[in-house]
């Protein structure tokens, strides 16, 4: 029988994959995709907790509202982030994380 633990482990593994990508990859766009993956992993954990924390016999809809807000914020964040990446590409002609060194001490 599939329990909450299964969903939480899948969520944790997806988050870990995204984290590995954020640390290891150099391409800013792919780093960004991995960030989205981490957000989705958190959403999966929230949805799992929502299903298995019953309020009067129904799933806890406070958690699903939080998922809704997370998805909205993530969509706004993607739009702004990609605009920043485009602006960066215009000035540097590259999307490699190594070429952005303006704030380096």
């Amino acid at each position: 029988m599939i329990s909450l633990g299964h969903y939480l482990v899948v969520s944790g593994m997806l988050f870990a994959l995204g984290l590995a990508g954020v640390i290891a990859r150099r391409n800013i766009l792919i780093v960004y995709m991995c960030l989205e993956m981490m957000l989705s992993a958190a959403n999966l954990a929230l949805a799992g907790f929502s299903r298995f924390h019953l309020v009067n016999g129904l799933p806890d809809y406070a958690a699903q509202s939080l998922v809704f807000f997370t998805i909205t914020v993530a969509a706004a964040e993607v739009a702004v982030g990609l605009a920043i990446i485009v602006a960066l590409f215009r000035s540097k002609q590259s999307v490699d994380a190594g070429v952005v060194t303006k704030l380096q001490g």
Partner: protein
Amino acid sequence: MPPLLFYLLALTTLGFGLLVVTGRNPVTCALSLAASFTGLAALFLSLDAYFIGIIQILVYAGAVMVLFLFIIMLLDIKAEEGKQRSLVPVVSGILVAVLLAAQVSAVVSSTGIASKNAQNTPLALSDAAGKLGKAALPTITKDLKEGTLPDAKLIGFTLFDRYGFHLQVVGLLLLVGTVGVVVLSKREKGGAP
């Protein structure tokens, strides 16, 4: 939900996720991410979160991934050709990920809450119809008595009843984001200031 289906969906989600992290061509990564999000949406559906699952497909696998692909093709980003990756970030990334996954598994296996499943915590739909309180709208109680979960209606009620202010703040955030994107992507006239 049959365990086999769960493992298949989890494998889809994690497998395509791995492809995102390891893929060399950005287009491959973006398409794998779309597939991974679709698997994740199916997992949401298996958790009785139908509305969230549909939103996941519409917003993530639809809008966000199209935006990513659009940017990749607009900027014409090629695969990282032959550039050898430095070993330190790769090793540390894998190490941190493995540590985190092990930690999550350890925590999950040591708590009792993780053993909750659909059999010992079933939804009580017809019972819930009498205990809705403020949410006892005719359409919701009717659905519950018929034994279907009015998922979107209940989320809508929760959003507009309990989180009305937050919803407006998020609307403002989207507006600010839209204006910000337009300002950011506007080309400066007459060269650099």
